[in-house]
């Protein structure tokens, strides 16, 4: 903890350099964010007011659906338009060894000399939900560094990894052709949070049929009850077909992304921003609480209460309440 005192000054230097375009400083900041160092916290405090201008686009879908290839195809178009673009690509960490193989760059190689493309791989480091716990913060750093578009590619997801919808302004869910029947499309979960659903591998048999099924099944429910009508509305995703490997349909996807960015700035995207803000505050709050629990005085109490709960001499609710009381007593 001896480094805490110098962290704000070192963070300030790195932030200044990164915002001025120093890519190594930016990379080092992202490392600090991933490792949750004191420097990262100081840097994020400073960068947060600078962020909020980029369009954050989440790209999710099952493994092998073509997320990385689609990101590469988008990069080509976005760079042709001269916009600076960053990618955060998350791959899973091993639950057994903690190691990870980050292989998304394989499909995104063509931009070595282009300083307006910045690609960063992240290991999920034990976080479930399709992202790493620090992905939102990493996207904010890239946003503050001046990238106009930040593409957030999740790990290969299943049906319920909806976290990306809170991390992004616009969520793209990728599907591959013939991955399931119509019942798959009406299950709750990932498809409900999509702003755009993309059937990739459009050159494969069944792609158009899959898209037609999705269009039919994801159409808004008519005749909702008064109670349901009062609740948040499910999204009404546009369904597109792309072949990322050839680029077919990708210009239409980019146009749809840009449309969603403008039209939804005050509507859905605003609520996504609010959800994201809430998630960030809550995550930090629970981290802070956990830190507080590790304090000398509370650790002893915590361990004693846990032992009592383990022996069934105390119930877990009372134990939690006592810890909260002890924490409150400490503050005052």
């Amino acid at each position: 903890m001896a480094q805490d005192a110098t962290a704000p000054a070192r963070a300030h230097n790195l932030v200044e350099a990164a915002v001025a375009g120093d890519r190594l400083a930016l990379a080092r900041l992202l490392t600090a964010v991933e490792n949750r160092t004191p420097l990262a916290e100081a840097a994020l405090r400073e960068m947060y007011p600078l962020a909020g201008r980029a369009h954050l686009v989440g790209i999710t879908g099952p493994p092998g659906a073509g997320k990385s290839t689609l990101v590469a195809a988008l990069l080509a178009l976005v760079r042709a338009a001269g916009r600076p673009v960053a990618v955060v690509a998350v791959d899973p960490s091993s639950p057994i060894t903690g190691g990870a193989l980050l292989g998304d760059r394989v499909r995104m190689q063509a931009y070595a000399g282009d300083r307006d493309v910045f690609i960063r791989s992240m290991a999920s480091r034990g976080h479930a939900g399709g992202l790493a716990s620090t992905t939102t913060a990493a996207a904010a750093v890239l946003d503050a560094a001046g990238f106009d578009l930040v593409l957030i590619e999740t790990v290969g997801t299943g049906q319920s990894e909806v976290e990306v919808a809170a991390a992004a302004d616009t969520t793209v869910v990728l599907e591959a052709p013939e991955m399931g029947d119509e019942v798959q499309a009406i299950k709750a979960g990932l498809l409900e949070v999509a702003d755009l659903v993309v059937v990739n591998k459009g050159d494969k048999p069944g792609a158009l049929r899959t898209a037609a099924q999705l269009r039919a099944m994801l159409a808004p429910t008519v005749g909702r009850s008064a109670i349901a009508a009062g609740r948040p509305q499910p999204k009404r995703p546009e369904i597109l077909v792309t072949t990322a490997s050839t680029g077919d349909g990708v210009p239409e996807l980019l146009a749809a992304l840009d449309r969603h960015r403008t039209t939804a700035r005050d509507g859905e995207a605003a609520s996504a921003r609010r959800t994201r803000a809430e998630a960030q505050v809550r995550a930090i709050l629970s981290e802070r609480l956990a830190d507080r629990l590790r304090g000398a005085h509370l650790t002893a109490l915590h361990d004693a209460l846990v032992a009592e709960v383990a022996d069934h001499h105390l119930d877990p609710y009372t134990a939690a309440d006592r810890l909260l009381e002890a924490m409150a007593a400490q503050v005052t």
Partner: protein
Amino acid sequence: MTDRPIKVLIAKPGLDGHDRGAKVLARGLRDEGFEVVYTGLRQTPEMVATAALQEDVDVVGLSILSGAHMTLVPRITKLLQEQGMSDVLVTVGGIIPDDDVPSLKEAGVAAVFGPGTTIAQVADYLRSNAPTRD
């Protein structure tokens, strides 16, 4: 932050099209608890240096079987130094004649791993020699 995973870039610069060895090593290091960025075949020195910078890796492992190491490796180490990453540990694996090893080391390579090297040897070497940063 002593328990954070060491981040390694495994890259195949040059034109040889054989990356089984690189993939086996990438997978092996994953199982040893490293975070491994794999970039695929046919990388230019610029691509390797850019990936190393953007990923802010601790180690760059270059796999070369084509015989072009005396051209490619010094270019990569020079680019890394130019972009302020002279603290990155650079290692080379593949078919490297013993006579070339001293010049590669002079160019900034920390270790050369030839055929027969085990995953454990590489992992232990990287754990002992990767730069420590906060």
